[in-house]
């Protein structure tokens, strides 16, 4: 009766297929870039790309988790800015640890509030996070009065912009380490499994005895945390906190997640593939700038490429059916 087990065709899940298509698209983009632009191939440029996109990259991990549970977090950019504003005086007066704790703490806290509003007060995630986007940005505004806060010690610049161990960009390193950590958590822990379950069908998970409230609140908290981490990378990159920092980053980050194959309906996707999505977005900008395309064209071309990349994926998987 059980011969069928042995067959075990190891079929790929559709989300994995998507991730692979996107990886291929990324590789093709890199190869094309290498061919048409000699400067592209320089190690400096490649490392630059990694470093430049680390902020989006880490934010995408948080957003990715949030999307996996079937929500999006529009407050990500504002939270990043607020984390910078909170961390800067702490960095200045009390050192690295205090700044990190304060900045990441405020991010996680806001994420927690988002989660509680969504799950306990039953405000839809869209309204909650859109409102929180205003509230957090407003807080930034109130604290800064619109004038940048200075004073992040210069040596912290190594985090946001520098390299360690010779030539490894620190921010990129943080990005990848966080990626691996998140991958392991999502893949190998019960919490991770339940994130996927809740995203797949919140009701079914709830009926099965999963504490869906806790899972989704945790997901929002993680999202706040990573948004704040992005904010701190930004903060240590420019050594100050401005009131318009990270404005609109949430849309870029969401796009990176979806391009990376995380399904908007939740429950499907590999968190590591947000790296691919982020890099594709970054590559587009990098190439447009290296090719000297007028910035008036950047938006149009970026938009077209994003749609195009996802369209290639859908068309190729549509045929398979």
């Amino acid at each position: 009766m059980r011969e069928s087990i042995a067959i075990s065709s190891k079929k790929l899940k559709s989300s994995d297929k998507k991730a692979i298509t996107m990886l291929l698209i990324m590789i093709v983009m890199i190869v094309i870039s290498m061919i048409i632009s000699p400067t592209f191939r320089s190690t400096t440029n490649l490392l630059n790309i990694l470093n430049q996109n680390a902020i989006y990259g880490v934010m995408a991990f948080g957003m990715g988790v949030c999307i996996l549970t079937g929500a999006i977090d529009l407050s990500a950019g504002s939270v990043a800015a607020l984390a910078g504003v909170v961390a800067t005086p702490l960095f200045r007066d009390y050192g690295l640890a205090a700044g990190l704790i304060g900045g990441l703490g405020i991010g996680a806290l806001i994420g927690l509030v988002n989660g509680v509003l969504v799950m306990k007060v039953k405000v839809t995630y869209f309204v909650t996070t859109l409102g929180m986007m205003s509230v957090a940005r407003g807080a930034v505004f109130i604290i800064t009065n619109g004038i940048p806060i200075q004073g992040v010690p210069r040596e912290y610049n190594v985090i946001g912009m520098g390299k360690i161990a010779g030539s490894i960009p620190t921010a990129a390193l943080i990005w990848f380490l966080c990626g691996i950590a998140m991958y392991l958590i999502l893949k190998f822990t019960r919490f991770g499994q339940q994130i996927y379950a809740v995203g797949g069908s919140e009701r079914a998970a709830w009926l099965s005895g999963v504490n869906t409230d806790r899972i989704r609140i945790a997901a929002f908290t993680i999202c706040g945390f990573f948004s704040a981490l992005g904010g701190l990378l930004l903060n240590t990159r420019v050594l100050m906190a401005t009131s318009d920092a990270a404005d609109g980053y949430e849309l870029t980050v969401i796009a990176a997640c979806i391009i990376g194959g995380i399904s908007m309906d939740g429950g499907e996707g590999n968190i590591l593939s947000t790296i691919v999505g982020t890099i594709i977005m970054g590559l587009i900008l990098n190439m447009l700038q290296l090719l000297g395309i007028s910035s008036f064209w950047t938006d149009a071309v970026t938009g077209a490429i994003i749609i195009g990349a996802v369209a290639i994926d859908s068309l190729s998987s549509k045929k398979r059916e």
Partner: protein
Amino acid sequence: GCGSSRTENEGTQEDTAKETENTDSKENTVSEGDSFLIGVASPNNKVPYFSKLVEGMTDLQEELNVELDVQDAQDDTNTQINQIQTFIAEGCDLIIMMPVQLESLIPIAMECNEAEIPIMTVDRKLSASDPKDVGVDLITHVGCDDVEGGRKQGELVHQLLGDEGSIALIQGTLGASSQVLRQQGLEEYLSENAPGIEIVAAQNSDQDQSQAITVTQNFLTRFAKGEIDAIVAQDPYSALGAVDAIKSASRDELLGTVIGYDLPSEVLDSIKAKDMYGSTLQAPYDMGALTLQVAYQCLTEGSEEIEANTYTEIPVVYIENAREYDPAW
């Protein structure tokens, strides 16, 4: 009265009628013993320049016994019009405008005229041509404008590079009037005075220092040593970002060639450290204070004495003269 038309030469019967009415209304306000209510339409308080400018006004309101209603349009013309409409409904005694976009406030300015509320503009002009030509009565314009600032940047470039050279431009927020007009001023100046200087690349940073770093890094990748001679940024923080990127890429030949806009303390420090070549100086705080004084003068003494344009100078600050200046904020 204050709201009366300064343009006697063009005064029509209507104007005269307005004048009389307005005198009445003004007497009302004074007799009630209220302080004056002044509406301030700021384009975007997230830009430190404007928040400083507003601060210059608000710090003075108690001294002059006026009440300010400051509104931030967040760079959206429509929002700004809404806010000015509410100023009118509130019965503001005077409205100070900093238009998000050139020309966009003309219709609402006319409404202000109709409601006989005196209006003035600060820093950003109402229209490219004289307001009179488009049918708007304006008390005065205080400050300088972005085109002029862009020209000053051109001067700095000229001074730095001589008649020949290639520059890369870091634009602010695409389409924002500050970006458009500053670039216009820069290009005008260069084509008139130094046609040998070419803008070889332009990318926008959204006035975001982090993005300016990215943009500059890509410039540096694209242009090898000797292919660009200077980098011009349209806002101070992008200039700082450019310096960061140059330093981290060890392209020391470009140190001291970055030209910024506005003069916060970090920019001044950077110029003093010879990392940046120079920047323009508009003192927004002082301009704000001056504006409110002019407004107060108009409200108390009438507008007859006020010049049509109260320009302030835009000095250029660069490595050689940096010691003489204080930061704008």
